């Protein structure tokens, strides 16, 4: 374990000194409001990501089942005699 040296102690004293910071009384309220907005935004982003995920999975399942790239089967035979 390192022994705290003299310089460190001096700087520490320097940093600790100074007037006790007057904390604005509405600091907590501001933080709560901003925090609520952040949480709301996070929820929205999460919801959008989930919606995108579900849509992608749904599309993949439909594609696998319906195979839309195979064209319609022909209903009529080509005319004879050419």
């Amino acid at each position, binding site marked *: 374990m390192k022994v705290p040296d*003299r*310089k*460190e102690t*001096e*700087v*520490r*004293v*320097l*940093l*600790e*000194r*100074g*007037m*006790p*910071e*007057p*904390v*604005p009384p509405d*600091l*907590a309220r*501001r*933080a*709560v*409001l*901003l*925090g*609520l*907005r*952040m*949480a709301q935004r*996070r929820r929205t982003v999460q919801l959008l990501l989930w919606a995108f995920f579900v849509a992608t999975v749904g599309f993949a399942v439909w594609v696998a089942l319906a195979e839309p790239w195979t064209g319609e089967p022909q209903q009529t035979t080509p005319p004879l005699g050419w």
Partner: protein
Amino acid sequence: MGERRSREERRRAREFEAFVAGAAGRLLHAATLLTGEPFGAAPAAQQLLVGALARTYADWDRLRGGDPYEHTRHDLVGHFAHSARRYRRPRGGLLDRLPPQERLMLVLRLYEGVAEEQAAAALGLPVERVRDLCTRGMATILSREASGPGAGTGAGPGPGPGTVAAAPARARRVVRGIRTRDTAGQDGAGRDPEGVA
């Protein structure tokens, strides 16, 4: 359902406000040291702190068992490190002559008492770099304080006689220098017109 949620919301707000009431003073002091603003007039530090506290509040339920103070400090430091360029301009505070990185190290290591290894891990720096920044910051601040409060305006702190002076005397002078700085400023302002007249 809505009733329960609003009750939860109120409980969380109450807990959070109790935490802020206890911790805001110290955190604001740290933020003010970081932004290099004078004590008592630190809008940028307040903004930095409100952002960090807001993120702590948003994560409040997730940090059950964790320390909200540590979470807030970690967030504060991370955001400061990320936007350090904005705080390079001196603003008249105690550490305003130091580059933001050195300020950050001094605050983390000495004001908050975080271990070198933890500070390095939190910022993604090698331990040697942390040690180096800290040493350089300490040297600058001590030599600046030792060479008198007025010397802060000079770019070069200069290894004056103060650096080799006996330590206790220097510490005392540092204390006195800080204490008389305000009155000296007023004196100077008052003396100036007389000098002109």
